[in-house]
């Protein structure tokens, strides 16, 4: 039995004429301990997909199964890392993480909770900023807090909705490594949504392209057969990596072209020519 399973899932927003089907006929199986990356264009329904798995949205058709049971709402077992960090701006780092820990471990004593918060903040190297408000942190630091908030609840699955897409390349690299090392330590199941093919190959076991919506469906999956731990500097000269990147990129370009073909219409333009009564040069008649 798969850990997470999506069976013929369809989801649309709006009603009547404005109804837009975002996802249609999605089938996906994720096994325990796997790291899956879903790659796709922006606006293809990636966020909707992850919201369905997290339990923030529910499918119109089909079902989302978690450990064989249908998902009925958000749960501590599936930690979600948001694209825009979603830290509460009126709480310090300590309280942002603390709120999650307190909610997860209701029976714990105060100092035990406090220690856990400090441990997890320390794990992402933010001990010095623990009493700061989010506004005093950089984008990378904020996302670290967001990551550690999700992990501090010790979820079985980490769902990541383009967590690194708003960060600069260098911060992105370090955070990728941090997430990988955390994943590696506990062997959690992870689902990463990204628009960066390199990121997907570097981090995941399997890569599944999402064909762009409306009516987005999952494309054929690409298995990443690279040894872990992967070294970024060596990847660029690795033949398997290059081949894989080329084939995924080609696939994405191909479906991108298909989409733009489907979208563009032929317009019959009227065959007219402008009638020039007088010649005008720089505002004066000549």
């Amino acid at each position, binding site marked *: 039995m798969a850990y997470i399973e999506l069976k013929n899932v369809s989801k649309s927003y709006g009603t009547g004429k404005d109804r837009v089907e975002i996802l249609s006929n999605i089938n996906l199986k994720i096994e325990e301990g796997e790291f899956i990356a879903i790659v796709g264009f922006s606006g293809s329904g990636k966020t909707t997909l992850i919201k369905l798995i*997290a*339990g*923030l949205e529910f499918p119109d058709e089909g079902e989302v199964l978690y450990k064989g049971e249908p998902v009925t*709402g*958000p*749960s*501590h077992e599936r*930690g*979600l890392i*948001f694209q*825009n960090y*979603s830290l*509460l*701006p*009126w*709480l310090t780092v300590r309280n942002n993480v603390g*709120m*999650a820990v307190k*909610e997860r471990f209701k029976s714990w004593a105060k100092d035990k909770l406090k220690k856990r918060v400090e441990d997890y903040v320390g794990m992402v190297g933010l001990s010095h900023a623990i009493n700061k*408000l989010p*506004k005093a942190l950089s984008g990378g630091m904020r996302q670290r807090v967001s990551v550690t908030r999700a992990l501090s*609840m010790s979820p079985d699955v980490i769902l990541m909705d383009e967590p690194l897409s708003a960060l600069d390349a260098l911060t992105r690299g370090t955070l990728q490594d941090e997430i990988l090392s955390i994943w590696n330590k506990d062997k959690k199941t992870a689902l990463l949504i990204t628009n960066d093919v390199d990121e997907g190959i570097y981090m995941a076991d399997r890569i599944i392209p999402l064909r762009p919506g409306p009516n987005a469906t999952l494309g054929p999956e690409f298995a990443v057969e690279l040894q872990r731990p992967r070294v970024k500097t060596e990847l660029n000269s690795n033949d398997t990596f290059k081949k894989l990147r080329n084939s995924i990129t080609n696939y994405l370009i191909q479906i991108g072209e298909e989409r733009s073909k489907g979208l563009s219409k032929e317009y019959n333009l009227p065959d007219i020519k402008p009638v020039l009564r007088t010649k005008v040069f720089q505002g004066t008649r000549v």
Partner: protein
Amino acid sequence: MKDKIINVLRFIGLGFFEPAVRLAAGEDPKKNLTALFQKVFFPIISIFLFFVLWNVGATKLYNVEKDYKIDTARETRGEAGVKEELARIESGESTVNSLPAPSAVWDAFKNLLKDHKEISAKKKAFTERVAKTNEKREAQGLDAITYTGRPSFVDQVKTSLWTVFCGFLLALVLAVPIGMLLGLSETLRSSMNWLIQIFKPVSPVVWFLLVYMIVKTLTLTYDGDVSFIISFIAVGLCAMWATLVNTTLGVSTVDNDYINVAKVLNLSVGQKVFKIVLPSAFPLIFTGLRITVSVAWMVLIAIELLSQSPGLGTFVWEEFQNGANDSNAKIIAAMFVIGIIGFMLDRIMFSIQKLVTFTDQ
């Protein structure tokens, strides 16, 4: 030290003195001197011009009224009448009641303070005199004798501030919880919307009359200060709308991201309201409260005037009815006191708002 002073100034909303502090510390004289000119010097010039204009205008109005009196005297009683009238104006027997000049207002203000000192002294003497009697009366189970003389201007300012404070508390206690309920439930919101839209623009005077009708009946057997009760309730009801509307808006438009966080963390309904919705609505609620304080202070004068509660409104109205030589000057002095207190109240609210609300950036 310098940074501390600047932070305090900024916090109490007097940030425009910042260049002066920096200049005193000898920091970047050229830049700070320009800033000082812009933020302090020019405002002072404009205030000065205002006083000059006021003085010129007041003198002109005074002359218009004086000339009219003399002309009337000439027409009815001839040249002898003119002399007589001039003497009467000189002695203050015939009042030229027009816009007072700044100096007259300043004198009136000083007189008001002097008057306050005299009344305070009288009050103190009275309290000392009746102290023994009061002890006896207390032992006999009777009420103590209290000073019942005329209140001074400062006493009236205190009464007004107390009325506004009570009115503000009433507005807070009514508007914030109701606003939260309305913000949380769309059904409640749409069912109350009509009532709110109709009551919001009602004039303070009408609110006063409405409160008067109700409170008068409810306090038939109460022999305390009913005028005060009516005043503060009317002030609260007039001023609460800004807070009510802002709280409703703040609570009903919480960022969807925060709601998602609450869902993912599996917060209970109560926790969602108090840990997510309320804090995120705080900036808007406080903006509403700040408007409420301003409105409360503004409507207070009219309401006190009607209710005869012994505050600034009553003071202004009594002086107007009085029509003594310095009545107009006293009214203008009261006007400045009202304005300055209003400004200070707004600054206080501004500081509290800064203290308790978050900014995203």
